[in-house]
C-alpha cells in the first residue's frame, strides 16, 4: 500500500505560495501556508479563505433514463435522506449507511437537472463510487469526476468575491448548487462548505483550476488556507470528520445526525425505511441509543485530542466515553472537542473528566457549534 502520493491540480501553486506539504488521504496536501494555522483560521472567520479540496471525490449519479428525479429515487435506496422532494438546484448532507446502520461515508449531494452531483471523502472515493455503481447498476451509472478540481472559498467576504465572478450567485442561498460557467469553463457552484461560515465550493476542470485559484487569490480579502485551519474551523463548527467522528460502527442516531434524516424517511413517513440498516436506525429513533456524539468543552488551556478517554468521576473508576476529535479552537480561544459518551451523560452541562497524561481534566458537555454559524439560509 506504499503508493506514491498524488498531487492535486493546485500542487505547484501551493508550493509557490510557500505551503508546508503533508501526506493526507493519499495526496500531498498543504497543511499550512506562511501565515500559519492560527491566522489562517482567523482570516477565514473574518474575511475569506481559499481551500484546495480537490482530493475529495466528485461523482455524477446519472440515470439510465430520465433525469434528476429518477436518480433521486434510485439514490434513496442507499441513504436515509429525502432526495425525491429535494428541489432541483438544492444540495443536502447525506449518509451512506451499511446493513448494520453504520455510516459508510458522509457526503454532499445536489439534485441537478440531469443527475445527482455528489462530493465524497477522499479516502472513500473509490469504494463509494464502486458501491453506488454496483447497488444502482440497473438504474444509474456513476461518472467519476476524480480528475476535476474542487475549490472552497469560505468566510464572510466570500460572497463578494464570488458574486463579482458569478453575478447569479447573489441569488443563491445556503445549499444551493448550480452548473454554470466562468469564461466558458464549466463550473459546479454551490453555496456550502466545511467551516461553519458562509461560502462557496467550485468544481471545475483540472486544467483551469490554477488559473481560477489565482484569480480568487488576487482579491485582497482572499488568502490560501491549509488543512490545519480546515480542521480547527470544522471542529469549532461541530462538523464531523469521517474516520474520526464517524465510521462504519457509528449510526446516524449515535452520531447525533438525526437532523439529517428527513421526516419522510423516518418511521411513519411516506417513504420510511428502504435503505441499508433501516430497521436498526428506526429502532434507535424509537428507543434511543447507548452512546451519543456530544460537544465537549475542556476546562483550562490544554487541548484534549482524539482518543482521550472520558470518565464520570475524577478518580477514573467509571469510563463513559472517548474523544473523537479535539484540539484548540482559535475563535473560541481555548480547547474544544467532540466525542461519544454513554446516553446518561449525553446531557448538556454534564461535568465529565478527561484522562490526559495521567491527570484528570474537567470537561463539560456543551452544545455545538461552538461558534455561531454564518450560513445565509
Amino acid at each position, binding site marked *: 500500500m506504499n503508493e506514491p502520493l498524488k498531487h492535486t491540480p493546485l500542487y505547484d501553486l501551493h508550493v509557490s505560495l510557500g505551503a508546508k506539504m503533508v501526506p493526507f488521504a493519499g495526496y500531498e496536501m498543504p497543511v*499550512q501556508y506562511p501565515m500559519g494555522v*492560527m*491566522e489562517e483560521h482567523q482570516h477565514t472567520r473574518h474575511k475569506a479563505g481559499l481551500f484546495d479540496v480537490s482530493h475529495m471525490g466528485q461523482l455524477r449519479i446519472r440515470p439510465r433514463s430520465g433525469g434528476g428525479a429518477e436518480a433521486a429515487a434510485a439514490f434513496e435506496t442507499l441513504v436515509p435522506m429525502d432526495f425525491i422532494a429535494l428541489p432541483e438546484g438544492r444540495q443536502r448532507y447525506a449518509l451512506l449507511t451499511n446493513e448494520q446502520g453504520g455510516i459508510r461515508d458522509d457526503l454532499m449531494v445536489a439534485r441537478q437537472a440531469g443527475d445527482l452531483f455528489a462530493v465524497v471523502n477522499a479516502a472513500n472515493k473509490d469504494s463509494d463510487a464502486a458501491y453506488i455503481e454496483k447497488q444502482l447498476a440497473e438504474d444509474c451509472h456513476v461518472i467519476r469526476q476524480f480528475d476535476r478540481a474542487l475549490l472552497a472559498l469560505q468566510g464572510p467576504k466570500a460572497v463578494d468575491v464570488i458574486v463579482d465572478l458569478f453575478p447569479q450567485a447573489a441569488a443563491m442561498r445556503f445549499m444551493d448548487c448550480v452548473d454554470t460557467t466562468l469564461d466558458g469553463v464549466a463550473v459546479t457552484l454551490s453555496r456550502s462548505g466545511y467551516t461553519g461560515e458562509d461560502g462557496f465550493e467550485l468544481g471545475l476542470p483540472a486544467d483551469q483550476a490554477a488559473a481560477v485559484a489565482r484569480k480568487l487569490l488576487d482579491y485582497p480579502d482572499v488568502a490560501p488556507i491549509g488543512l*490545519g*485551519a480546515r480542521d*480547527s474551523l470544522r471542529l469549532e463548527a461541530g462538523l464531523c470528520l469521517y474516520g474520526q467522528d464517524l465510521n462504519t460502527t457509528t449510526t446516524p442516531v449515535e452520531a447525533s445526525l438525526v437532523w439529517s434524516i428527513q421526516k419522510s424517511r423516518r418511521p411513519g413517513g411516506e417513504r420510511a425505511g428502504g435503505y441499508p440498516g433501516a430497521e436498526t436506525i428506526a429502532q434507535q429513533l424509537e428507543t434511543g441509543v447507548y452512546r451519543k456524539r456530544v460537544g465537549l468543552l475542556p476546562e483550562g*488551556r490544554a487541548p484534549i485530542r482524539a482518543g482521550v478517554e472520558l470518565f464520570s468521576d475524577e478518580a477514573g473508576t467509571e469510563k463513559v466515553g472517548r474523544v473523537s476529535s479535539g484540539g*484548540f479552537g482559535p475563535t473560541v480561544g481555548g480547547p474544544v472537542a467532540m466525542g461519544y459518551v454513554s446516553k446518561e451523560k449525553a446531557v448538556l452541562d454534564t461535568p465529565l473528566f478527561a484522562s490526559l497524561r495521567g491527570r484528570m481534566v474537567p470537561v463539560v458537555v456543551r452544545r455545538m457549534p461552538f461558534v455561531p454559524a454564518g450560513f445565509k439560509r
Partner: protein
Amino acid sequence: MTTRYTETHEWVRLENGDTATIGITAHAAEELGDVVFVEAKDVGTHLKDGEAVAVVESVKAASDIYTPLAATVESFNSALTDDPALINGDPEGKGWILTVKLDDPEAFNTLLSAEDYKKL
C-alpha cells in the same frame, strides 16, 4: 554560558554549576507552528535521560519535549501559561520552557554543539 543541542531539537543552556535551561530550537518551533499550550513535569520530578519532560501543543498536534540528560525539574517558565506563543516569537530566549538540575553537569559536553546541530 554555553548552549548545546539535541537531535530531537531541544536546546540546553548550562547556566552555572549544575542548572540548565531547556527549550526548543527555532527550527522545531517553526515545524510545530502556532503553540497554544505548554506544560512541564512537576518541579522536583526526577527524569532519566531521554524522558519526556514537557509537552508543547500547537493547533495541529501535541509534541513531547525530552531532557537529553538525567535531571530534576527546578522551575517552569510560567510566562508560557498566559502566552504560549512566546515559543514561536522567541524560542531560544523568552520562550524557554524549564530549568533543571543536572545529575552530572560533566555530561553536558556530550550534547551537540551549535555547529553539529546545524548539520542535522
